[in-house]
């Protein structure tokens, strides 16, 4: 049962992370490289988003997905997809923000050099992102750590349903409430181990990426 909860935690978080990576890296690159009028406002929004209170995100997602809300027809409230949506919203700003700053940290003359060497706009952007990849990996690790350990949003929108939407963090809350401190502590240990393992994998990947360069 504990194993099943741990696997579900990973499923939810990894699904959310895939979506937010696919959205977050292009958006982060765009914000770093393109100048447009309200860019400063956009940057401030991203930085605010990096510290979004999970429980507020949970509340808003709850109201939107409720059968009485605008997307009620999906019947997603109290299901895995609702939890993934909340975690995507929480992790996108982290990935956008960190991708953006790592691209900005790349030598600013590189882009000009690339263009001078005949690279198209698209090729230059791609090479800049690749140049900044170790920073981008840090963004992924930060996003993973933030959402797998988050409890406020997934409790609200998932409902902590046994066998369906119970993940490590909400199970810890429930076991603590029922006075089963041993089980709660064991679940906490698994959560920490997963977070550590994910970060270790990413740190190793980061090293590999540097060597490949």
């Amino acid at each position, binding site marked *: 049962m504990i194993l099943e909860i741990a696997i579900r935690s990973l499923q939810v978080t990894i699904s959310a992370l895939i979506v937010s990576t696919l959205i977050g890296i292009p958006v982060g690159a765009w914000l770093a490289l393109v100048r447009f009028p309200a860019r400063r406002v956009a940057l401030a929004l991203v930085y605010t988003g990096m510290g979004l209170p999970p429980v507020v995100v949970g509340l808003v997602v709850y109201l939107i997905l409720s059968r009485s809300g605008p997307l009620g*027809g999906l019947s997603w409230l109290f299901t895995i997809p609702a939890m993934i949506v909340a975690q995507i919203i929480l992790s996108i700003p982290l990935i956008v923000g960190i991708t953006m700053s790592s691209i900005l940290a790349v030598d600013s003359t590189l882009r000009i050099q690339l263009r001078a060497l005949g690279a198209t706009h698209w090729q230059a952007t791609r090479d800049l992102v690749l140049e900044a990849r170790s920073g981008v990996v840090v963004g992924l690790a930060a996003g993973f750590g933030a959402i797998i350990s988050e409890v406020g949003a997934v409790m609200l929108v998932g*409902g902590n349903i046994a066998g369906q939407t119970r993940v490590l963090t909400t199970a810890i809350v429930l076991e603590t409430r029922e006075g089963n401190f041993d089980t709660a502590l064991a679940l906490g240990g698994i959560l920490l181990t997963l977070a550590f393992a994910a970060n270790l994998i990413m740190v190793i990947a980061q090293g590999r990426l540097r060597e490949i360069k």
Partner: protein
Amino acid sequence: MLTINRKIALAFLTILTLLAVRCTPQPPATLRLATTTSTQDSGLLDIILPDFEKKFNARVDVVAVGTGQAIAIGEKGDADVLLVHDRAKEDKFVADGNAPARYDVMYNDFIIVGPASDPAKIKGMATAADAFKAIAAAKALFISRGDQSGTNARELAIWKAAGINPAGDWYVSAGQGMGELLTMTQEREAYTLSDRGTYLKRRSDGLTLVILVEGGSDLLNPYGVIPVSAQKFPGVNADLAQKFVDWLLSVDTQQMIADYKIDGQSLFIPQSEPWKAAHP
């Protein structure tokens, strides 16, 4: 060099996608039950629900929250059926057109628990209101659920009946479920109002708080089941909800409720109409 990189990335992505795909939405025959923490924390649902799931080839998704929140979930049409214990709010829920009817299911009772040392000397008092008066007079620490749950609603009603507006350093509003609140009450050597079921379950797990007041007429705790209106909320699975209600009220299920005991004590006493007809 990039190809190696790509291969690793591709393999990684494939694994992630496979993991993600396994998170499919739910199969059709599911019933969402919004209920109170006391029915879950007392262990009752774990005992009776498998029978329903087997008989109707359905799965029951239990969202266990306070009665106030469970009713709020019902008011938005986000559950198919409610099993709650706050008669005033239940009647209002039905009157507001959120449900066709509300049915008696079972009852147990509230108890006042506290440390064995009993600083406010309430042990054995006849009613909860008397005990609350003594606690307030002694300014002994009292911890309230403070979460709009059924237990919280009853507690506030008792304070009102006692003519006391609970406020001050001795009155703590915790905003926690019943299980957590009992732990907190024990740690702080305080008093609190609890449902008997959750208390017995926790006591069998080692809780050392003792029952100080019980059996008062102001301590009865009836539970009602309410199928949410499919007319008002088209997404509601009304058919299965009605089957659940009929099953819960049936004599067989009521017998299971009566048979659920911890330390030889029944946690809930059945009182559905079919049960009462069969046991006059």
